[in-house]
């Protein structure tokens, strides 16, 4: 039973001790020589340390002595000296190089710096971060506010929508909350108007809809409870768990919620598909990507 539970939790790992189960063993950060480089490197190294992972820094571009000197100088500021860091240099188009690197180097987590609000142009053309989010084979962590000094992660919000990937996302959220020492984890169930199935037109239908909503809420709660049963108990320690039903547009409203409760990290399922139509009529994760409320972890099962 116990081992079953663990396999469910991290999917592929065969490690027996739950506390050592690390879904993210190798972390990749693609860096560019921008003014925020130092901040980004310090933040990613900190995250890699909390996850107990190897950090792979990848630069897309020519390797020069000047650049090399610069990155090594920055690395000397890293607080956690025992962290395993390797640097790679590759030439090519950034998104392709990164996608291939994730595939070939067995990366579990890709960390990207993102703009908090994308502008219209970027929204339609698609920035590198968004492209990568769709195309890579591993989980992606988008950081909106990297910081040189540690800003504690207090509140994590995870989606709890009815989907085959959700238990995986929730278990990852538990792991991350535990690793980062978060105090509260909120599992958000998005209830869509469509599911309520009663259109509110008068007092009678309002009553019906309210009852239907209550029922849905209970159904969702019990579904989440089932998911929670498969989480190792030690992850519950020092963590306040809350479930919250919200009514709004799927995928979008959870971002709004995270913003309202001022969460520090939002954990979501990876998007299923993304065609040109989805781009024109954005939905689910598209909304959040275009208007990032917090740091965002997109959890994807590795094939």
């Amino acid at each position, binding site marked *: 039973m116990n081992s079953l539970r663990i396999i469910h939790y991290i999917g592929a790992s065969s490690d027996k001790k739950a506390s050592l189960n690390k879904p993210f063993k190798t972390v990749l950060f693609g860096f560019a020589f921008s003014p925020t480089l130092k901040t980004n490197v310090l933040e990613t190294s900190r995250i890699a340390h909390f996850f107990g992972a190897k950090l792979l820094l990848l630069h897309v571009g020519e390797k020069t002595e000047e650049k090399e000197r610069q990155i090594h100088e920055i690395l000397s500021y890293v607080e956690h000296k025992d962290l395993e860091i390797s640097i790679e240099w590759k030439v090519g188009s950034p998104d392709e190089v990164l996608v291939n690197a994730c595939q070939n180097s067995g990366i579990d987590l890709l960390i990207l710096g993102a703009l908090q609000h994308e502008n219209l142009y970027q929204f339609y053309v698609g920035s590198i971060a968004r492209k990568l989010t769709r195309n890579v084979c591993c989980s992606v962590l988008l950081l909106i506010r990297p910081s040189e000094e540690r800003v504690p992660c207090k509140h994590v919000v995870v989606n709890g929508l009815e989907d085959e990937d959700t238990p995986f996302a929730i278990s990852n959220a538990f792991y991350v909350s535990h690793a980062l020492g978060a105090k509260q984890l909120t599992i958000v169930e998005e209830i869509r108007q469509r599911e309520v199935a009663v259109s509110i037109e008068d007092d009678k239908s*309002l009553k019906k809809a309210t009852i239907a909503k209550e029922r849905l809420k209970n159904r969702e709660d019990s579904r989440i409870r089932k998911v929670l049963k498969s989480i190792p108990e030690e992850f519950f320690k020092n963590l306040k768990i809350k479930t919250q039903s919200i009514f709004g547009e799927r995928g979008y409203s959870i971002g709004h919620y995270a913003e309202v409760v001022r969460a520090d990290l939002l954990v979501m399922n990876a998007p299923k598909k993304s065609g040109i139509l989805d781009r024109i009529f954005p939905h689910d994760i598209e909304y959040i990507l275009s208007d990032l409320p917090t740091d965002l972890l997109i959890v994807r099962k590795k094939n």
Partner: protein
Amino acid sequence: MTPKTNHTNQFIKDLPKNFFSGFVVSLIALPLGLGLAIASDAPPISGIIAAIVGGTVVALLGGSNVTITGPGNGLVIVLLGAITTLGAGDLYQGYLFTLAAIVISGILMLLLGFLKMGRLADFFPASAIEGMLAAIGWGIFAKQFHIMIGHNNEHGSIVKLLVQIPNGLLDLFQHATTEELVASGIGFLSLLIMIFYSKIRNPYFQLIPAPMWILILSIGFSYSFGWLNLPFPMDSSYLINIPENVLSNLAFPDFSKILQKEFIVSVFAITLIASIESLLSIKAVDKLDSQSRRSNVNKDLKALGLATSLSGLVGGLNVVTVIARSSVNVNNGATNRSANFFHASFLVIFILLFQDQLKRIPLAALAAILVYTGYKLATPKTFRKIAKIGKEQIVIFLTTLIVTLFTNLITGITVGILATLVIHMFINKSAFLFLTNIFKPNVLLFQEHEEKSYYISVKYFCSFLNFYKLKNKLDAVPEDQNVIVDFSMCSFVDHTVMEGLENYLDTFAKKGGSIELIGLDKHSTDSKHPFAIRKILPMETLRPIEKYFTRRQTNLRDTAAEYGWSYQAKKSTKTYFLSNFIFFKSREIGYLYNRLFDEKENCNVFDVEFTEGAFVAKEVVKTTVMHIALPKQLPIFSLDREGLLERIYKLAGFKDIPIENYPDFNRRFFLSGEKTVEIQNLFHNELIIFLESNPYYHIESNGHSLFILKKERLLSVQEIKAMIYFGQQLQKLLKYSLQD
């Protein structure tokens, strides 16, 4: 007893009341129906047919409760336009073509109902609609004024007719015929009755509505000539024209122009105006309903569509929901749709029994009723009301009004909408805000765990463009619940939204719930009007915020008065008394505002703005807190829900302090501080029971005062009251334990 028979019993019990109000309404509906039809250049009987068909069909199939349906004011201008253009000179032929347009517009309304387009009216800015209604009012006024003074043959555009009014009056004094003089005499007298009717407070006189008085008096006037054996001084062209036998003289629509552009435009205009007028009226009548029921607008729209088509097929005008007759209906005690049915039945009786009498009604008398109605739609008061809300609203209003007067209703309302959009973009100096966010779902609704109150957060902007999203969410909340609408993430809120929310506020208050708007305190406005546009200004810190009170601030002031406390809206940067609380160790306090304070007990409740983090990670947070100064020293402690803010207190050297014999308390609360024993002594039985049995608050002591925090957001006035109560009780208990 099943609920079903219960309903039936109630229905039968209420029948006499509805019978009576239906009768009273029919007394107004008769003159108005005749008048509105004449004003549209249609045969007078067509208005009555619309009321009869409408009253019957909508009473049977409608989704509203106390509305009255029949020919409407708003349609007059559109129908008049349709009859004139489609008839190309021949009014009767134009009327037959228009009947076809009415039939088709009825089908379109039916479709709108099936498509659940009851939301349609939500997409029009409030001031543009006001402008359109004023234009309709002027249109009716301009045409009917001439008929009222006996000039039956004035034609032309609204503006032309308005300009001719002084000439018409002059003409009347200089070379009027006897007939014109008699007609204008009746007209002015009727107008005086309309104006002074409400001033005469005689219960017997008030039994009969003013329009009916006008009919009775003018018919009596006509009969008096017969009794005196004198010739009646007006020929049939000054009297209304009703066919000998109504049933055998019905007109039928002529569909031969159905594919022409003018016809299609007319259908479109009729459908649009009829739907908007009906939807607005239904909403307005719901507010009057003594049982505060919510109408099913889509069902009503379907019924109205069907009624319109049927009415058109037998020669009647459009059927719309009409506000004036509906309010008379409510005032006379109507409780259900049967009143509408009775109103229709009485009209049938009037038409069949009093044909001879009806034929004696002078046109001038009916015109006077319409002149008054038209004037009511565009009184100087309307202008003042809108001007008060803000400069931009009067611009939108006048633009719509003037464009409608010079062109037509459709162009007018379109220009009004565009003007509103441009003004909004201009005010925000950004088209970007609207363009990028218009399709984004900007409203989030969830039910908060502890209090079970609903919380709605609105992002980006909220204007007539996307108000329906907020409305959808508000509609889904039962009206006996408490709702908090937070606009702090929303940078622009327009007049249509503020006015719309006011309606919700009323409905919720009526049914025992409440809506509170928060997060608007930092939005600037152009006027003090509660419905004024609100937007966040980049320079807002320079402005004194107490200048433009939000509703919340007004309520806070009232609350202060209620408690005998003082209230200060002004921003104050004297926040040093907060800085030695651990909570604020890592947070930088900007300023406090909206301060409620009790000098005697040294209690303070205020909103405070602070920042967390710095530089890129900086976040501005506004929250409501309570501060209580205590007379004696007490140990420094913090009481928190298990673990939430634990980290910073650990950093401050605090440790967890268990209270003996209270495992439940220890499990639920995280009490920490340095001086274990003193703190344990402070938390006596009563205090612990008090804390366990009350909602959770974060409490902190800095040695001589207390700091209480509920949530990291602004609180609604209700929540503030609860917090004050909690704080006062806590203060009492602590004083008690400090004395020991």
